[in-house]
């Protein structure tokens, strides 16, 4: 194994292979492009966080006193848009996936390096459109752009924002395309499909959703655009158009988009759990195929967003039943991670804390999802804080926990430096506590009937709202800490060495940070993934 890790003298690692601005902005190296994404999505994450902070501050008191209702509409819209389209969807795929997939499959780069760079530029251009709209006065339609409000009535910057989302969608499509082709065609000799790390399987499933879903969002936005700008409408009820058609098209992408956010996180968790319990994953095939199953089933459940929108009862019943089915592959994953822990040599390092956080919070998010898939119960909690809490448990408790766990796990590989372990654990615990304090009260609020998207509420809801805002402050500190100490560690952290966690996988066999060409000697794979317990005499004999 040491053959791969020995750095060639005079051949620089990818970070010191050119220092100028041009060497970054025109790079075709997937590792550098991943860092470009890391910088830009971090910016958007904290921007979206500022909007969240303003929302929570407004909700500290029952009266709508901090901002007007119109401003509040814009705040939650911008928060949703930025977090969904500019942070969550690109987060793990564009940063960790980009960095790791070629390393994990033993390739020199993605299949289309120039396309990869183009994806980042497209993302940036889309981001500029959306930010311009935000600065010019924002948009108030909600991140869902429901017609006819978005296409006819809203007086905010719908066109500019929608264009931003439309453009960014192509970044997502091209990234997904690049991953699928890379995973098919660029694997190292001996790296069969069932030897792939589960992170790669998860990204394959995610890419399928990006490829199949995002174009439908694109055409829905085009249709809203045509209707708003040229009056060439297909949703306008005055000429017989059906606003519900927009909701169908929108959720055909936007429900699977939730799985774009969560599947890569699941891939990260599979890697972390195996490494820090020193065991092969329990039921590799089941975990691998459950990713694909989630991707496929994810396309068949969008109607559960429209139980009260005038969708027929027959359609609702079918969508409800299909939605329940998603619980099966999700549960398979949770059970298999738990079974992997059983009799493992568990160590509680920072990435593992995030992985544990993920399992607990994702399970809660998933279980409350079953409430929402139940027709009768959904009518009670529809459009309340219950659903806000539910999807934040999935998107923040799930996706962001996985993202942070992954960033910590592969930080030594990315930067070549170790992060401060004690601070890492403090931040992970703060994020977990802060998250639960923020969002658990919202389940209760929603169940008691507090609707979403209002800036004022009755006084009896104040205690729970204050708890939520307090939790959000802790969460904010928990998110700022890694920004500080990870930045610090880039310069002052101890050198990591090729494999500081003793993990399995090709990415750990090359130096940290890896050379531009990834491997000095191109690897050949002759063992299964996660061969942690390979001993001379098996213990169970």
């Amino acid at each position, binding site marked *: 194994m040491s053959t791969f890790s020995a750095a060639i003298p005079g051949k620089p690692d990818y970070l010191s292979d050119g220092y100028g601005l041009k060497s970054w902005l025109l790079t075709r190296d997937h590792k550098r492009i991943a860092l470009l994404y890391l910088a830009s999505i971090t910016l958007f994450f904290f921007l979206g966080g500022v909007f969240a902070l303003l929302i929570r501050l407004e909700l500290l008191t029952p009266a709508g006193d901090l901002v007007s209702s119109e401003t509040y509409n814009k705040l939650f819209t911008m928060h949703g848009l930025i977090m969904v389209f500019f942070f969550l969807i690109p987060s793990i795929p564009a940063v960790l996936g980009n960095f790791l997939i070629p390393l994990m499959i033993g390739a020199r780069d993605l299949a289309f390096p120039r396309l990869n760079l183009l994806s980042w530029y497209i993302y940036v251009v889309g981001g500029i459109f959306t930010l311009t709209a935000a600065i010019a006065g924002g948009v108030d339609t909600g991140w869902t752009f429901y017609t006819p409000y978005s296409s006819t009535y809203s007086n905010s910057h719908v066109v500019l924002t929608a264009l931003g989302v439309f453009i960014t969608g192509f970044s997502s499509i091209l990234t997904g395309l690049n991953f699928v082709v890379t995973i098919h*065609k660029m694997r190292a000799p001996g790296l069969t499909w069932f030897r792939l790390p589960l992170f790669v399987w998860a990204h394959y499933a995610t890419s399928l959703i990006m*490829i199949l879903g995002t174009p439908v969002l694109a055409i829905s936005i085009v249709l809203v655009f045509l209707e708003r700008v040229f009056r060439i409408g297909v949703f306008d009820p005055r000429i017989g158009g059906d606003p519900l058609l927009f909701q169908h098209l929108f959720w055909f992408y936007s429900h699977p988009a939730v799985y774009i956010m969560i599947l890569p996180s699941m891939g990260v968790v599979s890697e972390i759990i195996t490494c820090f319990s020193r065991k092969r994953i329990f039921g590799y095939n089941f975990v691998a195929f459950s990713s694909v199953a989630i991707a496929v089933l994810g396309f068949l459940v969008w109607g559960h967003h429209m139980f009260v929108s005038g969708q027929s009862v027959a359609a609702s019943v079918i969508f409800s039943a299909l939605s329940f089915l998603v619980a099966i592959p999700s549960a398979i994953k949770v059970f298999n991670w738990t079974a992997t822990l059983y009799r493992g040599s568990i160590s509680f390092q920072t990435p593992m804390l995030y992985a544990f956080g993920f399992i607990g919070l994702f399970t809660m998010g998933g279980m409350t999802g079953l409430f929402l898939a139940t027709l009768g119960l959904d009518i009670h909690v529809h459009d309340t804080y219950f659903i806000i809490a539910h999807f934040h448990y999935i998107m923040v408790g799930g996706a962001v926990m996985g993202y942070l766990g992954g960033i910590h796990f592969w930080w030594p590989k990315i930067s070549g430096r170790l992060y401060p372990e004690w601070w890492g654990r403090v931040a992970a615990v703060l994020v977990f506590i802060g998250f639960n304090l923020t969002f658990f009260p919202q389940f209760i609020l929603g169940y008691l009937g507090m609707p979403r998207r209002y800036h004022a509420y009755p006084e009896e809801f104040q205690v729970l709202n204050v708890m939520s805002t307090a939790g959000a402050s802790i969460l904010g500190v928990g998110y700022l800490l890694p920004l500080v100490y990870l930045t610090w560690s880039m310069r002052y952290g101890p050198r990591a060495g090729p494999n500081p966690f003793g993990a399995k996988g090709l990415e750990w066999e090359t130096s940290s940070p890896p050379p531009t060409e990834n491997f000095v000697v191109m690897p050949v794979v002759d063992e299964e993934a996660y061969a942690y317990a390979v001993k001379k005499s098996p213990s169970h004999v």
Partner: protein
Amino acid sequence: MSEGQVAHQFDDARQQQETAILGMWVFLVTEILFFGGLFAGYTIYRNLYPQAWVGASRTLDLTIGTINTAVLIASSLTMALAVHASQTGRRKSLVGFLVSTMALGAVFLGLKAVEYAHKFQEHHVPGPHFAYSGPDSTHAQLFFSFYFAMTGMHALHMVIGLALMAWLVWAARSGRFSPDYHNPVVVGGLYWHFVDIVWIFLYPLLYLVGSR
């Protein structure tokens, strides 16, 4: 020759070619989903308002539509011949076939522009100036919305295709392609055929609804 053309991430020319072709097929899948949204909406409204669809469809210029269909099918033939020429290394015929493909594409777009101009003159464009005396005139607007959205998106793809072809002509003239390396021609051909196929579906759905 072929060694210089293999990008650093690939082991050999064969892997590079397979990768490029798979990449284009995956891209075409995304295109199918993109147009799929339009086709889904079309299907729903056509079922809701069949009278409006039949009436509005009859206002389209069947002659131009049919000629355009023939033009596009012919362009697919010249494109296929261009791919063949690139595989056999005949540079002159490659350039010739690419240019004829472009010419046919331009004819298509020209005829499309004539049709659009007529529609503007007849006030068949949805919006405040819409005027139409056929059956179910309110809902006929929806048909025209789909007509413009679908053919507009298709035309946009044709324009992108023409730009691609122009680049291929330039690359072919400067001797970039050989029997060992001609991926861009193959991949460009796949795209062109896809755009043609979309029209093959649009033509009956838009022009032949009324079965005149």
